[in-house]
């Protein structure tokens, strides 16, 4: 039995079956190469879940609709009707979601409102995260800024954000610009601290220290080891600030110091729907649904993206 195997092996391993390899310079360089790409893996991990694909498609459609509808439709969201017969109409063929207490079409208002609220929230998110990243990077690399920045951070975060927003909205006449200023003037410091801590911990983590010891230039460490982390954090934070900003706008409208009454935003529409809810509950249906979908979707996308951007979750 044993000798049988040995004999077989001898047949298999006969020397004339082998040939010495020719030395190939390029092939020898490829030894340690893996085709791992951070962004490809992140995106693949992100879209692996069906739920995420669904939510991204949903939010994409909502936003597309919110921008296309105002551009293509001729319905004026602020068109007031003097004919009481057209007030508070139930949903019908002309007005898919009915009309409000002065005859404005709710379907049209909802899309205009979504566009305006989303744009406001998006600009706030960009400003918060943009300023936050730059300041956070400077702060992380400059110990001298610590006392001043920490004091600013303490003062800003010690006041509840709602009280701060109420105060600023009260002393300014509210418009898109002032609401933007009120929210953006607070958000950046929170982001700056977040990015400072993350940049510090990435910069001082062991693989970067080791890389530095091996003589990797700083430029390469920044571009290959730090920036990819930060970019995914930036995307995540932007996605998470958007629902927060939309909520703040709704809150300010509720207190009575939000956007002017004639501005079409989700906050105004929801609050107008709320005041006539007892008699005409359907007026709140569409705006509330859009509001819930947008905020939840961005929240989920932000969190799922954070998971996907962590290399430990890559396969």
């Amino acid at each position, binding site marked *: 039995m044993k000798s049988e195997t040995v004999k077989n092996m001898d047949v298999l391993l006969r020397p004339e079956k082998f040939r010495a390899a020719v030395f190939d310079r390029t092939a020898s360089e490829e030894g340690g190469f893996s085709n791992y790409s951070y962004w490809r893996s992140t995106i693949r991990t992100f879209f692996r879940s069906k739920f995420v694909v669904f939510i991204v498609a949903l939010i994409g459609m909502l936003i597309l609709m919110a921008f296309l509808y105002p551009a293509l439709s001729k319905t004026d969201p602020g068109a007031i009707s003097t004919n009481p017969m057209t007030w508070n109409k139930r949903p019908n063929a002309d007005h898919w979601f009915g009309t409000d207490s002065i005859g404005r079409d709710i379907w049209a208002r909802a899309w205009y409102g979504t566009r305006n609220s989303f744009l406001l929230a998006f600009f706030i998110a960009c400003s918060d995260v943009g300023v936050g990243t730059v300041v956070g990077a400077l702060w992380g690399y400059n110990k001298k800024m610590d006392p001043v920045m920490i*004091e600013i951070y*303490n*003062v800003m975060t*010690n*006041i*509840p*954000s*709602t*009280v701060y927003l*109420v*105060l*600023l909205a*009260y*002393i*300014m006449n509210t418009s898109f610009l002032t609401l933007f200023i009120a929210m953006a003037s607070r958000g950046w410091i929170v982001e700056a601290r977040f990015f400072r801590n993350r940049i510090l911990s990435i910069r001082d983590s062991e693989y970067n220290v080791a890389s530095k010891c091996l003589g990797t230039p700083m430029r390469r460490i920044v571009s290959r080891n730090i920036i990819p982390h930060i970019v995914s954090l930036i995307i995540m934070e932007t996605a998470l600030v958007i*629902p927060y900003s*939309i*909520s703040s706008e*709704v*809150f300010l409208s*509720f*207190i*009575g*110091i939000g956007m002017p009454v004639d501005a079409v935003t989700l906050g105004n529409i*929801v609050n107008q729907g*709320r005041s006539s*809810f007892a008699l005409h509950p359907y007026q709140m249906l569409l705006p*509330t649904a859009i*509001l*819930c979908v947008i*905020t*939840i979707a*961005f*929240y*989920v996308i932000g969190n799922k993206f954070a998971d996907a951007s962590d290399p430990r979750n890559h396969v």
Partner: protein
Amino acid sequence: MLRYILNRTLRSILTVVIVFVTVFMLLRFMPLNGYFTDEMLKVSDEQTRMAYLRNQGLLDPPFSQLWRFVKNLFAGDLGRSLTVYPKVPITILLCEKIPVTAAFGAASLVLGMTLGLLMGMFMARYKERLGDTLGTFYVVFVRAVPSLIYLFFIQVWVSGVLKLPLVFYEDRPESWILPTICLSLGSIAWYAIWLRRFMVDEENRDYVKFAMVKGLSKKYVLRRHLFKNAIIPIAIYLPSDILFIISGSLIIESLYAIPGTGGLLTKAIQKQDNNLVQVIVLMYAILSVLGVFLGDLLVAFVDPRIRLTEDEG
């Protein structure tokens, strides 16, 4: 320990001063109409109004206004309400309203912590099963959707289903139930998701595995080992929870018509009552700094690491 407390106290005092001065200066930009009562706005013309403002010292440089405000503050005089409760001294108003808000805040703080921690434990135990999924859905919903929306629907629908009163009545104790629960919804979500993650992470730690290997029951390890370590982060989160509840009280008190300071601030803003807005905003700002300060002291008290390092150093 003593040095830490002293250091922290001084820092908080500094923060209080900065917050106070900043907020006071910002408040100088309040709309001028807010300084008048309704009848004064109806009767007087532009000139008498300016004369009135000058007379009241409202056109003085901000710092002299600040100085006067502080002097009056220590004399126990906060000025009078203008439009909400015309001519009533604000100190009397606050004495009436603060106990209500404080009671609601304290009740929902306790409720939020208890329910939140219970829910977190539950979610960690049934990890990745139905209970966990439902819990996660609740947390995502509460944290993402504007609170106004679900609070409003709870007020309208749940009160109908449970036959609870729609607004607050001082003489009906059952009208306390809904507002307290509403106020704690956010805290429940925070505590639950946090404790769940803590438990799941901690279960893989060596000291837990070692305790299990020694033959201790899972229940015992959970209670005696894991939970003790969870207390410190809970204490760290407490101040943010206080801020969160202060924020929430603005909406809930005006939804349920609760006679507290949050509802008063909302009303004062809608009716442009500058004196009231100023006092309440300053009060909230200082209260928040105090809340954070107390939270830090609590952490120092329960966390042996801070106590020990400070004693050595």
